[in-house]
């Protein structure tokens, strides 16, 4: 429940879908919408969005990145808030768009104004909407992977855990090195597959050692990487985005699992 401070209209939220949720796991997008609506937000999904631009940015193409940044800013600046179920994409919009547009004063100004209103989903629910209750249950032991950008650029650590603690039936079992990178790194994992393989194997070893039945996280990149590796290893451990569990929508096949 949200402690509505007054009877001002519900905040408008533009959902930044993220390319990986759009392509691989729409369920996470719908889970985000459900959670936001429960928190009394008016959610819209602007059509003029594709990706936050990290593939270009982290591969050195500033020009394309700046174009994409302008596209995102234009599509989202009319909302009270921009929310995404990804720390990585929000980190990009919030921390990096102003840098990418630093030589373009009017766009820099727009980027900075948007930056203050961008939030990763769990941080938005806890820190901004002060969500107290989560109407969901999920009977499983789970461990949580702290994705790097969310953790280090946005300080997301307690928020998803606070929300999970309110989900009926979940027991959280922390793994070793939950804050160490899973080896995804965007195009890193295909440019340096052997190094990435080693890093993700270290991660899955820690997941297995935690004896949790499922692994949750807040970023699709990491989750696809981790799920892909767990499945390659023949592990039965289930992989879900934390939003799916919080919204009571983890009833579909887990990431990388077939239809049962």
């Amino acid at each position, binding site marked *: 429940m949200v402690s509505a401070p007054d009877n001002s209209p519900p905040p408008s939220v533009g959902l930044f879908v993220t390319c990986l949720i759009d392509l691989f796991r729409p369920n996470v997008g719908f889970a985000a919408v459900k959670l936001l609506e429960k928190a009394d937000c008016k959610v819209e999904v602007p059509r003029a969005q594709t990706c936050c631009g990290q*593939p270009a940015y982290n591969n050195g193409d500033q020009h394309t990145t700046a174009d994409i940044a302008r596209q995102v800013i234009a599509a989202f600046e009319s909302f009270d808030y921009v929310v995404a179920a990804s720390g990585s994409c929000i980190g990009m919009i919030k921390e990096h768009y102003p840098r990418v547009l630093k030589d373009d004063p009017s766009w820099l100004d727009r980027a900075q104004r948007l930056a203050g209103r961008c939030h990763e989903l769990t941080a938005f629910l806890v820190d901004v909407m002060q969500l107290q209750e989560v109407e969901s249950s999920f009977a499983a032991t789970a461990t949580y992977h702290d994705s790097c950008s969310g953790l280090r650029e946005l300080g997301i650590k307690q928020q998803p855990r606070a929300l999970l603690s309110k989900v009926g039936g979940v027991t959280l079992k922390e793994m070793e090195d939950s804050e160490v990178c899973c080896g995804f790194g965007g195009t890193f994992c295909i440019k340096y597959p052997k190094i990435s393989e080693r890093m993700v194997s270290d991660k899955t070893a820690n997941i297995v050692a935690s004896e949790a039945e499922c692994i949750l996280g807040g970023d699709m990149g990491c989750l696809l990487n981790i799920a892909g590796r767990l499945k390659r290893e023949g592990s039965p451990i289930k992989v879900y985005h934390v939003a799916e569990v919080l919204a009571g929508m983890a009833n579909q096949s887990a990431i990388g699992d077939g239809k049962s």
Partner: protein
Amino acid sequence: MQGSTTEFKRQAEAALHDATLQRAMAKAKGGFVDKRRLAVARLPEFAQIRAEAKAIKEHTLAHLDYYLEQFERKVLESGGRVHWARTADEACAAVLAIIGAASKQVLKGKSMVSEEIGLNAAMERAGHTVVETDLGEYIIQLAHEPPSHIIAPAVHKTRDQITDLFQAEHEKYGLTERVTETEDIVNEARQVLRTKFLSADVGITGANFLIAETGSTVIVTNEGNGDLTQILPRTHIVTASIEKVIPSLDDMTVLLRLLARSATGQEMSSYNTLSTGPRRADDLDGPEEFHVVIVDNGRSDMLGNEFHDMLRCIRCGACLNHCPVYGAIGGHAYGWVYPGPMGSVLTPLMIGLENARDLPNACTLNGRCGEVCPMSIPLPDMLRTLRFKEHERKLSKARARGALKAWGLLARRPRLYQVVTALMTAVLGSIGGRAGRFRSLPLASGWTQARDLPAPQGATFQRMWRRRR
């Protein structure tokens, strides 16, 4: 057997398959990380000291000429000499000129700058005998290898390897017993080195700091061999780079508090030793000659440019210890003197980006290095900046640039993007939906050689959303 920066990928893969190296790395990793964490936790004002340290270095860099000149003046006043070297070659030449023509016994303390300028090779070519006195450096010198870590040069070696090495190399001193315990290994090295200390002509050390107000050079060690290296021989030569200078002893105490904690998790390193000039009339020991060779080697170009922050680096090694890539492949794979995150920034700047194209890319930008760096150096940002430069100079692979360009065209046209992605996910979803994943997929071998690719759920979110509303 120095590797090559252009062979990064091959070297990294070899390292991943090297079981001995992997054992050594696994053993070292946790130790550094845990010890640092505890040391930082015990110091509530760590963040404040960190801010102070940054301010000290920034102040110094803003007035670098002033402090270097002050340092030189103070060295002269205390009876020493300062030699300026713009390049690695000039630095080696300066050291060789000080040593003189006759072949000498040279002792060396640990110094990364001397690795950077290739000093050992230059001295050996000139006919001098060089003995490393830092235990780690001594070990890798015996093994004819470069250091793999900036503070723990032999971290890639297991104890068994060291035992074998000592047995093979120390026989000539009559030490035939096989030493397997750490303490015995250290003692045996000490025994061998002691004879060298007493007969050496020249001692060369690096410097963690140069103190402008006193003209002192400072070394920070845990073995004390560095102290003997600079005290016993007749001539002491310090090799140090320009950014090592700091204004005062007070500033040094601030930086020392960060250095040891970040490096090894100690409150203070065992030996923090200052050298000020040659031996004075009433000194009991010390060298007769004291020289400081101050090396630029590209650093002054970094002043004020986008890599300026890197000049704050105090070579603590924390970024290496916390880097999951370094942890997986070790230091040699990077192919040059400085490995890990700080090396991936410095190496391209020193030997040319075109010669080290992989280094800025072989990083997930996970940010752990920047998080632990005591000098608040934004390492991931600088690695990304190097990627910008690679892109501008078209140094990246043509195929990768092509793919990026195609993706960029699509990503800037949302309508078209949504049509294309809807088709793609529908196809992939229908092929892979039942299994939930692909074991292999054309064009995705980079991904699928290490892991399955989870299948898309079927339709894109955008498509489903438009249908629902």
